[in-house]
């Protein structure tokens, strides 16, 4: 249990001289549902991009004892580190079932790839139930509503049994009920995994976060429980560019 954690040290990402991530340290333990918040452009997505190999970075990002930086995207996934995207990206021409089946399949032998899928693999079945898309299994993913696509993406990580899940704004654009459901799903998923969720909505964060990291201008501004974060003056100053009064009112 204790080897299962994500440890980021001195992470640094630059785009043509613009420093998007500036010496970030971050440790997330298994079972600690971590929320990552911060104003637009704070570098939240870029942090996930760096961990998952999408953008080059210096410093270190270790999962247990393995260094993730410098590896190829698909190798990082194979080590159990999965992510979703801010704009849901599923294979629209393929059915929900096919999407999940593909996600389940990176370990398949070339020969088994040449065969037709005859039954639904058990892990796909489980993920379908977990994200509540059973009744839509045979529909093309393109017809799903936005929230359902996000669930499908989470399901794709579940079938992979990703040990580290990095979710970029999974509840953005969802209705209130959908958010609640997703929140509970995240709680369940997070119990035995290392999960980072990026989110803006403080109500949602308050309800479901175990701990919170606040980013601003590429740096970690504060870290702690929801209560600690809300009490932090610097956070109140920068977060979402709102006035201290507005924040206190909302928190109050």
């Amino acid at each position, binding site marked *: 249990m204790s080897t299962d954690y994500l440890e980021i040290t001195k992470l640094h990402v630059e785009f043509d001289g613009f420093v998007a991530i500036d010496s970030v340290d971050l440790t997330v333990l298994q079972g600690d549902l971590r929320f990552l918040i911060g104003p637009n452009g704070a570098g939240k997505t870029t942090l996930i991009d760096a961990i998952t190999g999408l*953008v080059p970075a210096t410093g270190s990002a270790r999962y247990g004892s393995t260094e993730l930086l410098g590896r190829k995207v*698909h190798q990082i*996934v194979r080590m159990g580190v999965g992510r979703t995207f801010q704009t849901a990206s599923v294979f629209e021409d393929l059915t929900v079932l096919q999407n999940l*089946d593909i996600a389940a*399949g990176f370990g398949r032998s070339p020969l088994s790839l040449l065969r037709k899928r005859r039954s639904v693999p058990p892990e796909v079945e489980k993920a379908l139930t977990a994200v509540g898309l059973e009744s839509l299994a045979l529909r093309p993913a393109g017809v799903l509503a*936005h929230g359902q696509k996000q669930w499908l993406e989470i399901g794709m990580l579940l079938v992979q049994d990703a040990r580290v899940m990095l979710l970029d704004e999974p509840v953005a654009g969802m*209705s209130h009920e959908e958010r609640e459901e997703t929140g509970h799903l995240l709680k369940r998923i997070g119990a035995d995994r290392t999960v980072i969720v990026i989110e803006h909505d403080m109500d949602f964060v308050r309800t479901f976060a175990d701990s919170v990291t606040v980013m601003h201008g590429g740096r970690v501004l504060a870290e702690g429980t929801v209560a600690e974060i809300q009490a932090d003056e610097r956070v109140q100053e920068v977060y*979402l560019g709102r006035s201290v009064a507005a924040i206190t009112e909302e928190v109050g």
Partner: protein
Amino acid sequence: MKRLVPLLAYLLLAGALLLLAPAILTDFRLSLLSRFCTFAIVAVGIGLAWGRGGMLTLGQGLFFGLGAYVMAMHMKLDDAGPGGVPDFMKLYGDGKTPGWWEPFRSPIVTLLGIILVPAIVATVLGLAVFKRRVKGAYFAILSQALTAAFAILLIGQQGTTGGFNGLNGFKSFFGYAVNDPVNRRLIYFLTAIILLVILAGMAQLYRSRFGELLVAVRDGEERVRFLGYDPANIKLVAYVVSAVLAGIGGALFVPIAGIISPSDVGVVPSIAFVIGVAMGGRTTLLGPAVGAIAVAWAQTSLSENFPSFWSYFQGGLFVIVILFLPGGIAQLPTMATRLRRRPKPPADPSPIPQPRAAEPRAAEPRAAEPATTSAPATGAVA
């Protein structure tokens, strides 16, 4: 029902090729049809690489040529007899058979070569191209440039490849006289059956997990990467299979046409292959093969009657298909049904995904994010 229509179409095609065509066509027309069937085999491969895999292979002439020249070398050596020297080498070359020709005296090496030479060349090219993430128009242009280079190389080596004239004047095909009408019918049946077997195999491949994966790579290469696959490998397999099919088509073309020359393998035939596929419907199983045969047939009949008219017609047809029928002829039935049934306004499927009350996004859209990213939120069904 959904499975029945393709099966019926397949059986129709099989019936047309194996029963109808031999019964009603003259020997001359049947021999033309055999030639078109070899193009259809190439087209099936393009359907896989382009229609399913999203790789616009504008250079299949290269692999068609490799398969064809391997076969032609064997037939030349066979005609020359054991230890003999092919006739044209005595004229243009140094009167000796070059070392790299010798292995193809053996029929078994030849059959293996028809498969392996295109496969190996495609593997080397594919690895170089896909691992470097060359795609889109760059891939298309690169594959076409290689074909052009191949044709030029052939022209330059008159002593060993026959140069501009290519290899021709064959007498026998694995011991059967190529000009005998009965044998020509046999070659027709052989070609048609190979085409049908390849189509059946392709149907299986499209239904397999690999087929689903290939579509996923086509629609979201980056996304597939984030599911733990290296898309380069998946594309490579599809590309190599399409190259092998082009090679088989080329090899069968030689005994039927009686000649293979640089003008059969260069840029122009490479584009013609793709046009047939586009017209037939590149994403469907039978579309590419039927399209290839139809276009080749139209070309022959039109240029018989209006010799200089064909290229305009081909260009015009191509533009019409690209503009109005991006799915090719295969799209026509669905278009027809859609026109007949008046579209009902769809029951609003999106449970009000309201954009959240946040400031306008600064960092979007981002080039590094997967290409699949669909328009988020509103009305997913159109």
